[in-house]
């Protein structure tokens, strides 16, 4: 007897399969044909995805019957003081997005009627789908910014690090050196001058060393970048060709793969403009820009067409208003913004 799965006929059957195999393109195409074949399918899909999402807030009944005694570790107070030190989120209550994640039902049906003529090859399955999680492979980072806004943390040496959303770093301060490892994401460093110990930031195999200055380490899907706003920084690529560069304010470098890198020059204010709540880009690919906006967005933005992703963009985008930014991008490039749900947006050709 073959252990095969039947072709789904209901939205509930589809959503389970799509979650089970999120990278399966042909499954997604089949799903799309099903979705578009009948208006009732779309309604079913919306009800099911809404239910799916709400269930996240109900939580597993199983987990809620665990005995209390095992729920708390013995050194309860140790944990408490540790979490106070790492309590970056406590100081950031003013940063929290006050955005409500629920919309009244009526706006759902309004959106349903607006979904027409989709030219979509890939589809999203649920807003909890991971862009972050596929990049993050680490447990228990020292600092994690899981919110949708930038987070500023003060290190014990007097330096300040601004973490973009979906960023996790590890910090090791010792007598000899100050070392930060970016496990995932983007961070801007304002380093306190200390001649006795260098400040080293490591991301993958790119190591940036500085005595006291301000600079950014960025990662996109295809590259790791370092840019300096103050002081001088030495950037080394370890392991490979032993590339070693010295960067001054305004200067930056993008490392693309094992071999290629490109130097850049930008006004100092443009570097890490996201700290101020906006994204200033100069001739960057649409895919890369949307990827950065996505980081600040509580859902997921998809671009199915490769040539759409390759379009070049220049502009300033307010990160607090991702919908507005996307519509702006869409209107300039003749694209369509489709909201499958408030948290799932597709940017496609008209």
């Amino acid at each position, binding site marked *: 007897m073959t252990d095969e799965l039947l072709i789904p006929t209901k939205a509930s059957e589809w959503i389970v399969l799509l979650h089970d195999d999120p990278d399966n393109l042909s499954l997604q195409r089949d799903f799309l044909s099903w979705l578009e074949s009948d208006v009732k399918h779309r309604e079913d899909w919306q009800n099911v995805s809404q239910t799916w999402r709400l269930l996240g807030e109900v939580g597993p009944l199983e987990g809620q019957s665990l005995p209390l005694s095992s729920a708390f570790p013995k050194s309860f107070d140790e944990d408490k003081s540790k979490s106070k030190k790492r309590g970056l*989120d406590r100081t950031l209550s003013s940063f929290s997005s006050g955005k409500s994640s629920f919309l009244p039902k009526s706006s759902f049906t309004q959106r349903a009627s607006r979904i027409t003529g989709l030219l979509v090859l890939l589809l999203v399955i649920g807003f909890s789908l991971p862009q972050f999680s596929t990049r993050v492979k*680490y447990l228990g980072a020292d600092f994690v910014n899981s919110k949708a806004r930038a987070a500023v943390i003060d290190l014990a040496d007097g330096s300040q690090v601004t973490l973009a959303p979906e960023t996790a770093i590890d910090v090791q301060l010792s007598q000899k050196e100050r070392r930060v490892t970016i496990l995932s994401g983007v961070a801007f460093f304002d380093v306190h001058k200390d001649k006795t110990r260098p400040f080293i930031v490591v991301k993958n195999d790119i190591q940036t060393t500085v005595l006291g200055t301000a600079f950014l380490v960025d990662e996109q899907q295809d590259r790791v970048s370092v840019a300096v706003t103050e002081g001088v920084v030495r950037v080394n690529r370890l392991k490979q060709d032993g590339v070693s560069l010295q960067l001054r304010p305004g200067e930056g470098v993008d490392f693309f793969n094992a071999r290629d890198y490109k130097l850049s020059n930008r006004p100092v204010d443009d570097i890490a403009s996201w700290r101020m709540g906006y994204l200033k880009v100069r001739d960057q690919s649409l895919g890369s820009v949307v990827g950065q906006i996505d980081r600040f967005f509580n859902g997921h933005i998809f671009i199915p067409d490769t040539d759409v992703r390759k379009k070049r963009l220049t502009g300033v985008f307010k990160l607090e208003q991702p919908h507005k930014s996307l519509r702006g991008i869409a209107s300039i490039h003749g694209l369509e913004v489709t909201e499958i749900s408030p948290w799932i947006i597709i940017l496609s050709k008209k």
Partner: protein
Amino acid sequence: MNSITGKHDLLQLFMLHRNDLVGYANSIIGERHAAEDVVQDAYFRVIGVEKRKQDRLVLEEPVGYLYQIIRNLCLDSLRKKTRENSYIRKEDLSALTADTGQISPEQHAGARQELIVLRMALNELPEKTRQAFELHRFSGLKLADIARQLDVSLGTAHSMVASALEHCKESLKKKTE
């Protein structure tokens, strides 16, 4: 850093479920900022437990564990509020902490009707069906693994999870009609 061999990469799981968890905390506490604090707090506690590798049984279902910790942290914070300014009547609070399975924190005034409906719907499901669903939705297990764990065929695992969801959807529909 610890090397945890298990299928769960905790940070990854946490990020995947973070919005759900904040929503859950919010449904009890009623305040988004406090909810985010609680969730972050819960995360660090679970890491603390994992680092010491205590009580392996608990850590096999870290997401369920997170929900449990969040629930307790929220109740603690509500209890504190009661002492401070009698914000919640004592009767309401005892309703919140009663673990009878009938009354839950989600029935606290300000909690959403939908969540109550869904919780009841989940409770109505046959044991195995609900398990299959929770393993898929919260523990992120693949259907193949669920099938193996529950000793059913792949097709059955799929239809169990789908029918659980269908039942929840229908319950929600009935309540709002």
